[in-house]
């Protein structure tokens, strides 16, 4: 491999490690964060980092959907809604108990993921997903699922508007 090739591989390693560290750091800060608005900003940061990690695996379309639909639309609406309620601060449990719970959960989840990976018996690696083939799959084999999810999304949005607008109207007056 040429020198440029080596540099390119190490730059990918470095970038993946940095993005992973950012997401872990934001998730760790979120545990003790008392302000809900800052907490939702951290959630947006985690979403952006995870979309970067997914893009490095070769799913650029999924990363774009995560950025545009999830972070750009949903989490931003979440932040705006919380900001309108004011800077609400909540109580949190002691860091000692939370860290014990998180450590036990980390060990359990890591061994679960490790076991599943070993049981699969395949070589995992980056892949390439083209938009043309994906849209063909989505409109042929997964058309029913897409239809049901679209109808559910519409119903959920109507319910959300109804709950937020009508539900608390009597209490405010």
């Amino acid at each position: 491999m040429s020198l440029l090739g080596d540099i390119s591989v190490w730059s990918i390693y470095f970038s993946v490690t940095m993005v992973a560290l950012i997401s872990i750091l934001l998730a760790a800060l979120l545990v003790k964060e008392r302000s809900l608005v800052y907490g939702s900003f951290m959630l947006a940061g985690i979403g952006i980092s995870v979309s970067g990690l997914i893009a490095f695996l070769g799913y650029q379309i999924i990363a774009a959907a995560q950025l545009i639909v999830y972070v750009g639309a949903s989490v931003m609406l979440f932040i705006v809604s919380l900001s309108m309620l004011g800077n609400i601060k909540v109580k949190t449990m002691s860091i000692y108990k939370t860290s014990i719970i998180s450590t036990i959960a980390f060990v359990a989840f890591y061994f679960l993921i490790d076991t599943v990976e070993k049981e699969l018996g395949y070589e995992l690696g980056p892949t390439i997903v083209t938009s043309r083939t994906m849209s063909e799959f989505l409109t042929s084999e997964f058309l029913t699922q897409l239809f049901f999810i679209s109808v559910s999304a519409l119903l959920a949005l109507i319910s959300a508007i109804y709950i937020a607008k009508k539900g608390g109207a009597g209490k405010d007056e």
Partner: protein
Amino acid sequence: MSDLLIEIYKITASLLLALGLGTVLSSRSLVKMLIGAEVMFNGSLLYLALIGTVYPYATAIFALLAILIASIELLLAVSIVILYYRTHREPEVIKTIPEGDR
């Protein structure tokens, strides 16, 4: 992909799941629990993307549908939280945490 990168992905996914669970359990606030659940969703999405590289197209479509469902769930949860806050004027489900648990 080398084993080192796969390990980085596995550790990140596990830590996001664990810290999300810690966030859910650390507070009695509805919003904080919701944020923790969303962190867990991000960890599981990363895990799905890693494991699913064997069947890339099916995984990509599942991940896309999961992102759509998570977005809908977040929007619905926001409306419920706003309603709860408007009725109770209090973001926490239980007002005080017992002294020994702080």
